[in-house]
């Protein structure tokens, strides 16, 4: 456990120095999601949002800012990890990936450590913004004092599992950057960041349930906006747990395959 802690700390330092070396990066990490949030909020403004609007079946108008805030917070958690796994190509180019795989380090610990450190660096500023904003928005209906910490934990764990899975995909090939395009924008559209997935047509619902962010956001909103009890949330929690279990299993299996593939083809250094 102490070793894992040491590895995580080293990974955090590495990520911090390597990817977050300038204060301007933190500035962009706050400004960019805030702009996105404001844009999303005001894009609803020209439309009818009263009780008889189509969206009112899923979100009340007073809860729209909170809905978008939680949506963007979740999205930023997941988006950071898409970015971080995309950066695996840097490790390949720099030859440092070989130095990681020549060592006996636990591969899963490395992947999840990498995800955790990217996440902490990438989201803390926007997270603080959301916490602050929560004091000014209407519609908060907490299940209890434990609801915000639990929501945070759900978001953190699910995002790390998602990040580990993505890192493995990027281990397979230097040409995996197309995944960035495939995963980033569709996640924003279909995961319920701005619009509830239940409002989508069936084909879009199918896509939305491919992203674990959909399940995580569902739970977070139940905790923060619907005053749901733990008992009523059990089905949603079970569903998220099942999805995460599938992702962890896939990560373990694919990780073995990816390392085997790299050792066979020698593509660990190709870029």
């Amino acid at each position: 456990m102490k070793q894992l802690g040491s590895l995580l700390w080293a990974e955090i330092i590495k990520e911090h120095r390597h990817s977050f070396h300038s204060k301007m990066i933190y500035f962009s990490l706050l400004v960019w999601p805030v702009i996105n949030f404001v844009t999303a909020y005001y894009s609803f403004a020209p439309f009818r949002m009263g009780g008889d609007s189509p969206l009112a079946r899923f979100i009340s108008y007073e809860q729209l800012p909170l809905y978008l805030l939680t949506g963007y917070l979740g999205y930023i958690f997941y988006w950071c990890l898409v970015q971080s796994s995309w950066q695996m190509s840097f490790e390949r180019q720099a030859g440092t990936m070989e130095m990681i795989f020549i060592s006996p380090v636990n591969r899963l610990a490395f992947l999840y450590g990498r995800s955790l450190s990217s996440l902490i660096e990438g989201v803390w500023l926007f997270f603080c913004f959301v916490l602050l904003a929560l004091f000014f928005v209407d519609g908060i209906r907490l299940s209890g004092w434990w609801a915000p910490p639990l929501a945070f934990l759900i978001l953190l764990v699910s995002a790390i599992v998602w990040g580990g899975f993505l890192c493995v995909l990027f281990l397979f090939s230097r040409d995996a950057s197309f995944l960035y395009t495939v995963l980033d924008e569709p996640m924003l559209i279909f995961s319920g960041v701005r619009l509830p997935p239940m409002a989508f047509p069936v084909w879009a619902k199918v896509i939305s349930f491919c992203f674990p962010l959909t399940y995580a956001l569902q739970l977070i909103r139940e905790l923060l906006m619907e005053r749901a009890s733990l008992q009523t949330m059990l089905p949603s929690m079970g569903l998220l747990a099942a999805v995460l279990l599938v992702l962890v299993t896939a990560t373990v299996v694919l990780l073995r395959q990816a390392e085997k593939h790299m050792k066979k083809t020698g593509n660990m250094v190709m870029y």
Partner: protein
Amino acid sequence: MLIAENVRKVYQVKEKKGWLRQQWTEVEAVADLSFRMVPGKIIGLLGINGAGKTTTIKMCSTLLTPTSGTITVDGYDAVKDDRFVKAKVNMIAGGERMLYWRLTGRENLQYFGSLYGLQGQALRNRIDSLLLQVGLYEAANTPVERYSKGMKQRLQIARGLINDPRYLFLDEPTLGLDAPIARQLRKHVSELASQHGKAILLTSHYIHEVEELCDEVYIIDKGRLVAHDTPEHLTKSLHLDTALQVVIPSLSDSLDYDLRQLAQDYGGSREIAETDEQTWEVTLRGKTDMTTPLLSLLAAHQSPVLRLSTQQPSLEDVILHMADRRGA
């Protein structure tokens, strides 16, 4: 001991045959290669024509799986028991990669040390000792991007030693370094084997480096072992010519004739070149030493000797000779 037995590595290479068609071909990078690494000894891997040296190193360091054959490290199989093997090996490559440039030297070592489970005071002590060993203690907190090429290479050595490996693979470690820094590194590598008991496998394009450092040399061509011996035995076993060079102030026709005759008598050859200083440089090549008859001949012609030197065949001559022979 590291034992590689009949190791073979075949890559599948994709060849484009137009817009949509592609063809897979097999390329044999290493074929039937066997060798041993013993603690305290340095072995050299020299190659002709893209011989598969790096592939061999990567197989030994568990980064590549051999297509067939076995590599065992202190009894552990490099494929099946790779986690045990990984703790005992490390690799240092030439060039400026394999480091995080934005991190300081110390942070790089902290990161790579943590990958080997090192932590706390033990890791800090190890880093300090390595930084002192490679002469980077003063620059420990400077980002690597501000290091010179030589400093980066020294940091690579520290990184390669972070897990105190028993087996160390050096892939062109002095590539592109200035002569004084390269010499310093060679001294360091030599000490790693002689004083710290490391088993070292070295590949280098600088053959004098291999000649200077290695106890044994394996010469491979297209992945196949073509010769294995000590550098001295290799040069002697091929019976290559020794070059005897003499510089004289003038060259008469009769001396020229006698020199040609002398070379012929000893089964060798002679070359004559006029130098910029208006003197003559005579080179006699042969398998036997012609120093005494040459000096007698020059004395008979009353020709003063301005300079006399003998050049024994080097490992480089062996490689060139083999390359010529295999190319023919």
